[in-house]
């Protein structure tokens, strides 16, 4: 059998899986943000017309999947796997959303890195010949995440200035073997990094080393320079974490400052309550679905590196004083019709 790996951590797809369609559904604050008009659906109500925020999140995730599948022109019978993840205990939003689809389901937990994890896994499944179409999706919701990770919104606690604002959004993508659309060229699965940050209100600082490690490995493995990408997107490092990540890579001799965009700083108008940026696995997912995918499809971007980063702690471990283990996965995306420049080791 051929082995399609390069370097220490990167998988290079001989036949590049195609992301044929995406769907995005967001809440009110996201709908009023700079990317507002790009999302498929924006709710004016944080509960998305449901009786609880949790039900609202499930609804948004389900709709993102429905929209992506409708755009791709496929039905349940055409989908071989549904990969879904969110931030709640037991990833319930994903599992409830999956109830409504007659599709084999795999739940993911990668915190904010979920969309990267999902796209990489979908590419493995499709490129490996195990699936015709895979639907990848993830969601987060500000108020359900506050209840889960910090304090219930009803409690009215003052937010800490470094804390990021969890995005209320869901994003979905259909990954297939053929069709039109941006392609997944390579994927670098990250390693867990933990440099001892234990403050759950400062996740950007905790995640920056994971981002830096994965980007560095990806570029080494692919024998590339940062300039080979039009943009390197991090998923939810926020303002503080992005600066740290750029510094860490600078120390390794990689200057990505000019190419680096953080999805956490793209989704909101910068107001004091969101000054550190956004977070949550719906952030990278919805920005990817609405903006990055569209730019690759239109040719505005030729090649982009999407690197969602996840803080893999739990509220319990944080209360026990444990530090935050973090991971980042890199997915190299190319516009339609692009060819490999990397070498595949046979």
């Amino acid at each position, binding site marked *: 059998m051929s082995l399609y790996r390069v370097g220490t951590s990167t998988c290079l797809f001989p036949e590049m899986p195609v992301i044929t369609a995406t769907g995005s559904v967001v809440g009110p604050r996201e709908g009023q943000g700079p990317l507002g008009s790009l999302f498929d659906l924006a709710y004016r109500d944080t*509960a998305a017309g449901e009786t609880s*925020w949790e039900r609202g999140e499930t609804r948004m995730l389900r709709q993102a999947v429905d929209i992506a599948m409708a755009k791709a022109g496929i039905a349940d019978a055409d989908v071989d796997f549904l990969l879904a993840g969110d931030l709640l205990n037991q990833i319930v939003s994903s599992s409830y959303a999956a109830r409504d689809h007659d599709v084999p389901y795999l739940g993911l937990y990668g915190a904010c890195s979920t969309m990267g994890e999902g796209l990489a896994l979908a590419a493995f499944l499709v490129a490996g010949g195990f699936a015709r179409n895979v639907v990848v999706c993830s969601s987060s919701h500000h*108020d359900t995440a506050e209840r889960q990770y910090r*304090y219930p*919104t*009803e409690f009215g606690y003052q937010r800490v200035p470094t804390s990021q604002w969890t995005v209320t959004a869901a994003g979905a993508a259909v990954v297939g073997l053929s069709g039109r659309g941006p392609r997944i060229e390579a994927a670098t699965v990250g390693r867990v990094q933990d440099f001892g940050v234990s*403050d759950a209100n400062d996740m950007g600082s905790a995640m920056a080393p994971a981002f830096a490690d994965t980007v560095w490995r990806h570029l080494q493995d692919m024998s590339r320079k940062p300039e080979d990408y039009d943009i390197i997107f991090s998923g939810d490092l926020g303002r503080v974490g992005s600066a740290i990540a750029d510094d860490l890579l600078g120390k390794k001799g990689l200057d990505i400052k000019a190419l680096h965009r953080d999805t956490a700083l793209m989704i909101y108008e910068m107001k004091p309550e969101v000054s550190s940026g956004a977070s949550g696995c719906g952030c990278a997912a919805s920005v990817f679905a609405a903006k990055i995918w569209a730019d690759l499809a239109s040719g505005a971007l030729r090649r982009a590196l999407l690197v969602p980063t996840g803080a893999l702690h739990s509220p319990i471990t944080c209360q026990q004083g444990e530090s935050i283990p973090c991971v980042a996965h890199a997915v190299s995306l190319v516009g339609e019709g692009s060819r490999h420049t990397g070498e595949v080791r046979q």
Partner: protein
Amino acid sequence: MTLIRAFLVGGALCAIAQGVVDSTKANPAVVMVSAVCAGAVLSGLGIYGPLVKLGGAGATIPLFGFGHALVTGMIEDAERAGLFGILTGGLRATAPALTAAVVFGYLMAVLFNPKG
């Protein structure tokens, strides 16, 4: 004049708590419990009593005032019923605040829904 004194004393206590919230990584539970404990200790040392005389409601409302009420109640009952009063006085003196918290908390939860 009473209002101004209450405002100044209550405001100063709030400012101290806000300072702790802003300058440390203490979570809300720690800040609130610390305020109750501080009120109790100051009351035991005889410092909080004069503050109540000066600031009235500005000093008696929770959370510093809650600690003060706990200790005052314990001392009162201890004087009347001996050591056993230490066990009963705290809750007796703070019963109004506890009952109000439960009743009004319940009412608010029933009447209103958070909008996010």
